[in-house]
């Protein structure tokens, strides 16, 4: 109950602020737009800063000067905060429905060409299909080796 009251109050004040702001700032924004190129304005690709159907405008919600890269929770943090272990395990939730690891035999293809690769290079851990590819692998600079391995998520990541 209390939260609703607070919210409506906030909305009222926000409304007042919005109208005041609009009157003052419309001219300010207009003049800035005039400085932009004609075709940019015509194409209307820029989002206007004040939208009539919004109750709270963006620049009020996220005032300039504060760190724009707000700390929104990433998926991992969201999942952790969900506390799925407190709920019964057979209820489907985001984590439950994930696929298990594959039971099929792993497909091994050459990292460079895509052919079937029965061999792997002990030095760089790349897979290769035949001797020409092997020659190529041995002549690759380290940067490329790491990028090929990164395709397979097998690169050495130094943290």
């Amino acid at each position: 109950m209390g939260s609703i009251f607070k919210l409506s109050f906030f909305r009222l004040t926000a409304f007042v602020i919005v109208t005041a702001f609009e009157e003052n700032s419309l001219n300010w924004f207009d003049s800035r737009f005039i400085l932009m190129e004609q075709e940019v304005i015509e194409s209307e690709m820029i989002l206007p800063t004040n939208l009539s159907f919004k109750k709270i405008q963006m620049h009020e919600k996220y005032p300039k000067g504060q760190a724009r890269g707000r700390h929104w929770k990433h998926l991992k943090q969201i999942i952790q905060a969900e506390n799925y272990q407190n709920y019964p395990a057979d209820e489907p939730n985001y984590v439950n429905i994930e696929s298990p690891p594959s039971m099929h035999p792993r497909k091994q293809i050459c990292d460079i060409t895509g052919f079937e690769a029965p061999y792997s290079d002990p030095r760089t851990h790349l897979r290769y299909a035949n001797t020409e590819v092997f020659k190529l692998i041995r002549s690759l600079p380290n940067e490329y080796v790491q990028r090929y391995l990164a395709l397979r998520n097998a690169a050495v990541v130094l943290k």
Partner: protein
Amino acid sequence: MPFISRTQRQTDYNLIPPSCPIVIDNGASYFRIGWAGESEPRIIFRNIVQRPRHKITGETVTIVGDHDPMLLKYFDCTRSGPRSAFDNDVVFQFEIMEYILDFAFDRLGADEAPINHPILITECACNPVHSRSKMAELLFETYGVPSIAFGVDAAFSYKYNQQLGICDRNGLAICSGFTTSHVIPFINGEPVYEACCRTNVGGYHVTDYLKQLLSLKYPHHMQRLTWEKVEDLKMEHCYITLDYASEVRLFQKGAKEAEEKTRCWQLPWTPTPVEEPPSEEEIARKTALKERQGQRLREMAEAKRSSKINELENELKGLEFLIQQLRHVNGNDIPSFLAETGYVSKQEIESAIVKVTQSLRKAKGEQDEIEEKPEISNSEKYTLIDIPDNMLTPEQVKEKKRQLFLKTTSEGRQRAKQKRFEEELERERRNKEDEQRRLENPELYMEQLLVKYKDLSEKVEQRKRLKTNGNNGNENVSGGVGRGERLNAAQKERMRLLTTAAFDRGKGEDTFGIKDEDWQLYKKMSKDNDDEDEGPNEDEAELARVASKLREIDPTFFPKSDASSSGTEPPRFRPLRKEDFQILIGVERFRCPEILFHPNLIGIEQAGLDEMAGVSIQRLQSKSQSLEDSNGLTNSILITGGSCLYPGMSERLEAGIRMIRPCGTPIRVLRASDAVLDAWLGAASFASTMHFQRQVFNKTDYYEKGEDWLRRYQLKYSF
């Protein structure tokens, strides 16, 4: 067929009654919004936001969706890449979501506050409550929406196709989206989320894989391979094969079908204009010009020299005049007389005269003066050397030592000159011999040269390989510790020295460095490296000489360096040809979509699409324990989602599922009528039914019932 965005501002917002719901399909790739009951969404755009700075005014603006890249040149886009509100398939960045909704509502034509229509918005399966509640809050608070309903896009798609008669009430929906792929079974028209299955592989991963593979294969065309271009390539050329192994064998053998299947993308390329050999007039004109310039320079030099000579002569005359005057002047008056002129004594004037005469002679170009000097000094030097020590004063002894030193050095210099002269003679002789041999027997000579070239080139290559392998090995493992076979001789030596130095000392204590001799270690190490570097240089010089001789004689000889250059860099010697600007896509065409079925090709340890279907059915069986239903499921498998539009997808899925299910079960794979838009169409048709009104929740509900209720909120799709 690339998707086209539609962002025309709609004008009929005010004409639509407030009871008509707005239907939003919030997908990770595209955002679609429209009115319920219509046959297509009004606005479609890519679900990304960019915030670049305007170059001139300096303010930061927001651009939603994809726009004409030509217009973006007015903005500084270096620090602002396109950002998405999604992480996997869950919305987490609500600031970006707000920009997107702003844009969408604005283009839909909304202009009065608040948005007075109920909203049906799609989300992923089993969306976390945090994301759901934040989305509800955003819509209620900022836009003033009266009521909201959440639904799963795959379910809407299935229901729509069920209405169209494509699939049955019981079936399986395989939805392959931008970042994830879901498999959801349907029993009696309702999705069974307990048996749902999700793999985190989607169209984004396929495009990314293709982009990386092409960038690695063609590093110089990396700027051309932008994300959008690669996505176009993927949509146009990629397909899924029934059996990867057999298809790839075709390419390995180099069969003709493989040639046909390889697509070639020719980048725009202009051949370098061939320089015509300059005509005779041109040559004559140029030489005349050069001559004129040379002459001009020579004249200038002459003028300078003559002016310098004049100056010196004047000075000399002045000084001689002074001396003459001095003779006339009295001895006592000399200092005062000289004070005016700036010289202190007669000797100074005389020495000045000598200097000036010398420089004058030099300017006039008399070379004999210089050559006389060493001979004079030679005869001077040896005066003291022959006299034994005890007969000289200490000063004279010092003088004698100096003369001795000078004599030895000059003798050494002469000897070196002699040696050089002899070497020149020797080389001349050898060249003459070579020429003779060549003239006598050209073929034999050429063969011998070729053999020598081959040997030398092998040696050089081997050393180069050793070096680069050593370097590669050292880069791979940070630091110096490596395996023995990788290091070349110098580095092995260095390792050995360091380790022996470390182990030589007492137990547990590192006393290296207390004695000064310890540091000599490093001198030894660097010397070794130097020795290594000098050797190959000789060989390489020899190699170059032989190569040049061969090139002279034999018109068909090409130095080996051109042939053996590795594929990563084209040799800079030959002109760029049309083929350098072609990008060939052969194996990648079916290698990239393969990751949908084998995610471990890109390192994601999850099941592929066909296996997911099996997992889903298994989960269903364990939940509901009724086998007949599950058997009937495979009779109606619907594939939707943008990532299922590859040719060959249905056949592959069928084959894959047949492998898992018991023999004889009916398997029917059905394609959705419009894989991309079906989710929105299903949602729109759902929202236009009476059923929808009972399923929405409004703001008071949301705040009263709390988060727990929201978690359990699920849409019911059938009537």
